[in-house]
Each structure stands twice: as C-alpha cells, then as structure tokens.
C-alpha cells in the first residue's frame, strides 16, 4: 500500500520525516486518522497521543502537546511544541505537564480560557492514568 509523507517537527528538531501509511492525530475536536489522499485540513492539537506506523511497519507512539497538524497534497506536517516518545514519558514529565496546565488554569481570565485549561488538565490526568497501567 502506498503511503504519504509525514513530518513531525518540534521547535528543537525534526523528529520524524518519511513515508507512513497512517497517522492518528489528537485534534482539538477529536482524534482523527490521516490516510493517503486525505482532504486538506489544518487542525489544532490537544495534549494527547499521536501514533503512526513507519516504513518498517513498526508502530510508534508519542505524547504531543500544543501545535498544529497541516494536511495538504499528500503531506502531513505536525508542528508540536513538545513531542516525547511515549516510552520515555515518566512521572516527572507528567508532573511538569500537570504543573503547566494548573498554572494556565490559574492564569485564565475569560470563561472560555478557563474551560479550555480545565479540559487540558483533565486530559493530562487521564493520560497519566492510562500510561501507568
């Protein structure tokens, strides 16, 4: 099966670049999978798990936070503020994420911002639960 080009970039480096068959992205409005010939879309990301199969058929999962996915002309570019392989995620990472989210919640001024921050905190807490087991 033919694949498409996928690039995962964080501010510090290019994490992955190559052909893949399928990528599952945690979008703000729900997870979605991108396959070949996907319609062009730009979506914001929520903190969550991104998974894809590389050319060797090995499945990779990463924790991503804050950023965008840009799908166009059989290229998928994911810009993530932070991307860490799930296997490398430890309690410290989660502590840090929880701390960031809590700070955001405290700093939120409008009703909307508070709701978003609270959602984010909840998502991270759930994730932590999932990864631990």
């Amino acid at each position, binding site marked *: 099966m033919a694949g498409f080009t996928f*690039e995962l*970039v964080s501010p510090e*480096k290019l994490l992955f670049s190559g052909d893949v068959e399928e990528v599952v992205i945690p979008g*703000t409005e729900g997870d979605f999978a991108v396959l070949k010939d996907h319609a062009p879309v730009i*979506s914001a990301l929520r903190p969550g798990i991104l998974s894809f199969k590389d050319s060797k058929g090995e499945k990779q999962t990463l924790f991503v936070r804050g950023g965008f996915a840009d799908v166009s002309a059989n290229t998928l570019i994911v*810009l993530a*503020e932070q991307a860490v392989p799930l296997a490398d995620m430890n309690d410290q990472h989660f502590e840090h994420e929880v701390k960031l989210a809590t700070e955001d919640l405290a700093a939120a001024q409008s009703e909307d911002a508070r709701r978003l921050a609270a959602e984010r905190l909840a998502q991270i807490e759930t994730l932590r639960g999932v990864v631990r087991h």
Partner: protein
Amino acid sequence: MPSLKDLRTRISSVKATQKITKAMQMVAAAKLRRAQASAEAARPYASRMNSVLVNLAESVVGSPAAPRLLSGTGNNKTHLLVVCTAERGLCGAFNSSIARLAREKALALMAEGKTVKIICVGKKGNDLLKRQFAKEIIEFVDLRSVRYIGFENADQIGRNIIARFDKGEFDVATLFFARFRSVIQQIPTALQIIPAVVPPKDPKAPVSLAAYDYEPDETAILASLLPRNISMQVFSALLENAASEQGARMSAMDSATRNAGDMIKKQTIKYNRQRQANITKELIEIISGAEAL
C-alpha cells in the same frame, strides 16, 4: 630601558595570555558547532509555522475579527524593544553592536515623542544600556544559569511579552539580535514581532488553499498560532544569537592569539638584543681594563 628580568616576565605573561585566548578560541569553536546545529534544527519548525501563518493570515487580514497580535492596537505610541545579547563578554563587538542598534532605535523613537520600554535578555545588553536608559528598562531576563537554550526559555519570554501586550503596556514590539551569517559576519537585526509582519506570499506556491478545512475555525487557530509564533521567533533569535556569540568570540580570540604571538616575537627580539648588548658591554669593560694595565 627595561631590564632583562622585566622583559623575561613580560614575555612569559604574554605567553600565558596567549594560552588562554587559544583555549577560549577552541572552546568557542566547539560550542559554535553545537549552536549552529541547534539553530539549523529549529529552522524547519519556523518555516512550516510561517507557511501556515501566511495561509491563515491571508484569509483574516482586514476583517474585524483579526486578532490584535496581527492587526495591532491601532496605536503607535509605546514601543517595546526586546534586546537579546550574550551573558558573557570577550566576544568582539558582538554585544556592543546589538546594543548600539537598539540605542539608535530608542533615541530615534524618543525624538519622535514616543514612549520606549526595554526588556533586556542577557546581562551584557543590560550593562550597556542601563546607564543611558535606566528609566526605560522595565525588565531584565537573566539566562546565565541556562546552559543550552530550550524552547521553554523562549516560551517564557514570549508569554511575558504577550501578557504585557494584553495589559496594554505597549503597541509595537521589536526584537533585537544578531543574525548568524558566518564566523566572521554577524548582522545585528531588528525584527518587529507585534503586530506580526506577514511576509508576502510566495507566488510560486501552489494555490490550493481555498480547499482547506479548519478545525476549529480559522480565527481560533490563528489566535493560538500567533502567541506560539512569537515564542518561536524569540527562540530562533536566541539560537541565532548563541551561534553569533560563539562565532564572534572565536574570531575575536583568534586575532587575540595572533596579536599575542606578534607581541612575543617583538619582545623576544628586544630581549635578545638587550642580552647581546650587555655581553658586549661587559667584554669591552674587561678588554679595556686589561689594556690599561
């Protein structure tokens, strides 16, 4: 006339200095390689983000819904200058050229009757500007404890700038840093970050943008993209700066080493001449003493 002993101490002290500058040059060369690599690693993110931004900005520019970070406050009264410099000296004109650019800009703005506020990132810039602009400097960000600049450092500065913008503390923000061109050339640059300057679209780029779906809508994406873009610009400025600093230090230390070498050569010649003169003098004394007998 300095004595032989004086000359000897002078030569050995110059030799010691040369060793230090040589070591500093080699350390700077090693650090430069790393700084350059991380500056290059950040480039794909910045360019991708830019292309998304260009696409989005096109569709909202001019509409009343455009976020303030893009359209500005409508005023042009208060300017914020974010001056990024190094934490350490001994790197040639690196710090002073950035500070000079910022100073010129600040004075020009003040002459126009505008209010200027300055945030200094890096100790050296603060040192250079605080005498003249003690009142204007509102904050000093110290990165001395940071060994390798991460996105988080930049993000903190970016958030700080945006928080001040939201409070209405300034209308226009400009970032000062040195762009890394080569080891011997670093260009002090002023870059406006608020309101965001959207580069004109590349006419060669494929025009399939109308078909884009946005999730959530365009304004929401733009609202979360713009703050990130500012943090990213601060981040790439800091990385460029880090590379420039090491480059500047490397060439400064290289010429210092060369100067020390010249100095040693000159002093050694002087020392040998003096020694020879002393020997000749003593010989003359002995010979004329013997002849007198």
